[in-house]
């Protein structure tokens, strides 16, 4: 356990910029956009008449409506974080078992009493737990700063931020839901994480190409065979990857639900799962047949990654 923590700290030290600075920068962008909107409003409307009018309008709405809008806003604000987190995780994993082979520092890492399995596990846990935790934390900080700025603005024009929105939100519920969706996505993404670790342990150079070209070539060949045999679209690799992405348990898009626009899980183009952001829907995915197959595929990839890591110093 202590060794695992030591190895996770090592991952953090090496990737501090990607793990910690990147989500903080995104939070900074959100705050900057909010401030720019406020400054623009002040610039054109010195008495802030429109802001006052908006507050009056909002205060007349029922509590549930305000609560719902803010909740939806909080869920929706994750999308940029999620998008960047996916990129960060992708490149982190590609480099995780490649960079130290490239610069030969693997000879130092292998001189420490940490097994190859433990090493690969530390990279896996960094991707599944450490990275989402940092992004979650930055998101929460961003929400708090935005709430403070919003409150100051409302106070500045003589309104009551507590009555208007602070008392109607349940931040724990929103953050909890986002957290569950993030970590559920970590599990959902296991086959992809496993694939990237395998490629990272294998690639003699340019892991990016080794990660993307084989599935691409495979898909093209498959499409060609399908064209020859008129197969169903579903079993093709592209179809499988699209299904995987569209059915993700992570907050990604919006959908029209009961006549209202609502933030949604994944991309609501497939009918297999309900895309409304609820715990039930998230766990439906985690306890599905697809997830089971995904875990088996991931296990094969991970065993391959560990085996390759074991043989990384062969030549």
């Amino acid at each position, binding site marked *: 356990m202590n060794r695992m923590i030591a190895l996770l700290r090592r991952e953090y030290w090496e990737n501090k910029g990607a793990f910690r600075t990147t989500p903080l920068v995104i939070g900074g962008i959100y705050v900057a956009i909010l401030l720019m909107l406020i400054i623009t409003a002040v610039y054109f409307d010195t008495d802030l008449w429109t802001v006052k009018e908006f507050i009056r309008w909002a205060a007349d709405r029922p509590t549930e409506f305000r609560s719902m809008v803010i909740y939806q806003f909080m869920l929706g604000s994750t999308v940029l974080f999620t998008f960047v987190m996916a990129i960060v995780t992708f490149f982190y994993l590609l480099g995780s078992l490649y960079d130290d082979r490239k610069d030969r520092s693997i000879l130092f890492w292998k001189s420490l009493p*940490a097994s190859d399995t*433990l090493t690969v596990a530390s990279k896996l846990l960094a991707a599944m737990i450490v990275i989402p935790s940092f992004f979650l934390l930055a998101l929460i900080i961003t929400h708090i700063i935005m709430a403070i700025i919003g409150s100051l603005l409302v106070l500045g024009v003589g309104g009551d931020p507590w009555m208007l929105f602070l008392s109607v939100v349940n931040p724990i519920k929103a953050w909890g839901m986002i957290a569950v969706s993030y970590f559920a996505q970590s599990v959902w993404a296991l086959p992809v994480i496993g694939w990237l670790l395998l490629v990272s342990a294998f690639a003699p150079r340019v892991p990016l190409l080794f990660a993307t070209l084989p599935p691409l070539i495979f898909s093209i060949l498959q499409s060609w065979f399908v064209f020859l045999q008129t197969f169903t679209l579903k079993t093709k690799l592209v179809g499988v990857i699209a299904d995987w992405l569209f059915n993700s348990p992570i907050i990604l898009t919006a959908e029209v639900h009961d006549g209202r626009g609502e933030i949604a899980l994944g991309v609501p183009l497939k009918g297999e799962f309900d895309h409304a952001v609820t715990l039930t829907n998230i766990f439906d995915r985690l306890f599905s047949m697809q997830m089971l197959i995904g875990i088996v595929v991931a296990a094969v990839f991970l065993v391959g990654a560990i085996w390759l890591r074991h043989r990384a110093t062969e030549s």
Partner: protein
Amino acid sequence: MNPIISARGLTKRFGRTVAVDHIDLNIPPGRIVGLIGPNGAGKTTALKAILGLVTFDGELSVLGKNPARDRAVLMEDVCFIADVAVLPRWIRVWQLIDLTEQLHPKFSREKCLEYLADTKVTLDHKVKQLSKGMVAQLHLALVMAIDVTLLVLDEPTLGLDIIYRKQFYTNLLNDYFDEQRTILITTHQVEEIEHILTDLIFIQDGKIVLDSTMDEVRERYVELMVVPDKAGQARSLSPLYERELFGRHIFLYDRADTEQLALLGELHTPSVADLFVATMKGATTKGGAA
């Protein structure tokens, strides 16, 4: 006493090339063994097999464990510096010390800081900011602060200046080495380690051509320096190797009759470097000296 390293028919092939060719080794505790060989002789490959970094054929046991299978456990009692500096470039010195402390049950932070105090390395330095020599100093400080049974050093002082190299070997001998520990060193700077070695192993083309204690080496080999007109006589006593220096002929003999040789000229104990050259060149012309 159980040997630290024992190998029977240790072999490593890379495709068609045989890097290590049926090596037998038996290294007891409390020795400082020099593994000497020309470039490409298989030194590093043999060390890698001992450290669990490559798979191999034949039998190999290090501290009673199979290194290919139990590397992680083995590394609690074995330390190594492989080839030139391989410390990760992004890491800071304090992080490296923290990490080693958490992963290595036998690491002493105090000792490490003590060794570092003699250098210009500070805790806040990143490895990539350090010169090659400073990286080597840092790595040596880390390794010498770990209380292990077997220390493997592959060209440990490459890139270090003479003062630090001398210092290093002095520390190694005085502070680090004791009868429980075994040190296995490869280096091309043979003359620097010859006075600290207890055992000598020469390796050539993946085979061991000499494996003996330093005491045996001193007893067995003798160097004779003669003036040119006695050279023919000396040559007839089947020397291992002959070279010329300032008009004198120098012959190296294995198990020769020293009284007979003393009549021809001056006798010396050969340096390991001269013995090495003689063995390597002699092996190609005379078919081995072991």
